[in-house]
């Protein structure tokens, strides 16, 4: 029942997602190692990656658990890290809002940094794509990443060995996202928003993880929108 164009949009998403495996897989393995070293069982560690699918917040939770923080602190801190995903959800709505409810419910489950960044970049490029194509592209970006995120966590949990060169690969993530977002800076308004975002996130880096980014993000969106409004 899948038409040719849906097939090709799915494949385009799949291809776009491939470079991100370079970040996702080592990160998943590292999580498996760190979580089991902190004292989680293998099934707890793998379940973590399966239901949360958010690297930064998973590491935040494990870090606090290592320090035996109260349960509610672990929850609040780790959820705060993920608040940016509400902005992703809002930003995807104009593109995927027309999909069926089960499709939207599924898209929400796989709405992570990489799928959002790849998806929104594509949707801005081809805004007139039918919603089904946008949905299949979005799914394609995660078709390998999501299973490998879970399997990688399991491998790290079972072997207890991180990949060599882990410290060098830590910089693959910033490079990948910077390379993806730079071409999206298409106007003075975009540039001003990006500069506000960087400045705000650095100045607010002392706040609990995730909160500074959220405030910087709001400020940056306001700056971009205001410049667009004034310049027409």
């Amino acid at each position, binding site marked *: 029942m899948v038409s040719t164009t849906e097939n090709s949009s799915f494949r385009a998403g799949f291809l776009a997602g491939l470079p991100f495996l370079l970040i996702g897989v080592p990160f998943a393995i590292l999580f498996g190692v760190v979580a089991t070293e902190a004292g989680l069982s293998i099934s707890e560690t793998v379940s973590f990656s399966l239901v949360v699918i958010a690297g930064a917040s998973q590491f935040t939770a494990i870090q606090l658990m290592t320090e035996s923080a109260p349960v509610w602190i672990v929850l609040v801190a780790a959820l705060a890290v993920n608040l940016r995903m509400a902005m*992703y959800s809002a930003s995807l709505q104009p593109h995927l809002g027309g999909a069926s409810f089960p499709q939207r419910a599924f898209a929400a489950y796989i709405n992570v940094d990489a799928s959002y960044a790849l998806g929104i970049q594509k949707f801005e490029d081809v805004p007139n794509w039918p919603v089904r194509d946008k949905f299949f592209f979005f799914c394609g970006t995660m078709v390998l990443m999501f299973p490998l995120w879970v399997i990688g966590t399991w491998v790290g949990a079972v072997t207890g060995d991180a990949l060599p060169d882990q410290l060098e690969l830590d910089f693959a993530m910033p490079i990948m996202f910077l390379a993806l977002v730079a071409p*999206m800076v298409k106007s003075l308004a975009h540039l001003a928003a990006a500069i506000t975002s960087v400045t705000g996130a650095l100045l607010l880096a002392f706040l609990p993880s995730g909160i500074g980014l959220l405030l910087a993000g709001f400020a940056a969106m306001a700056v971009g929108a205001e410049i667009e409004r004034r310049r027409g």
Partner: protein
Amino acid sequence: MSYTSAQIWLIIAVLGVGTYLIRFSFLGLVGDRQMPDWVLRHLRYTPVAILPGLVAPLVVFPDATGGTTDPVRLAAAIVTVAVAWWRKNMLWGAFSGAATMAGLQTLSGSL
């Protein structure tokens, strides 16, 4: 770590459900209703407003150097942005940034 197994499963379950609801929020509840123009105008800037801020601390205060600013990583990030923007191409940018990082690290003898 000093949690019972039940507490650990509670943490996993609440984080899973909470994160899902955050991701679902607008996409799920607004559906295909049209949002007001001023909201859409703000949302157009979401990627450039969030993604640069997401990685900026990792570039400026990298974990690998214990949070000290590292000229090599800074240079690699700048090359990445410049090339990706100039070529309008992610892979070109990522490749140039990675090559800059590898090259400068070899030069500075830290490999």
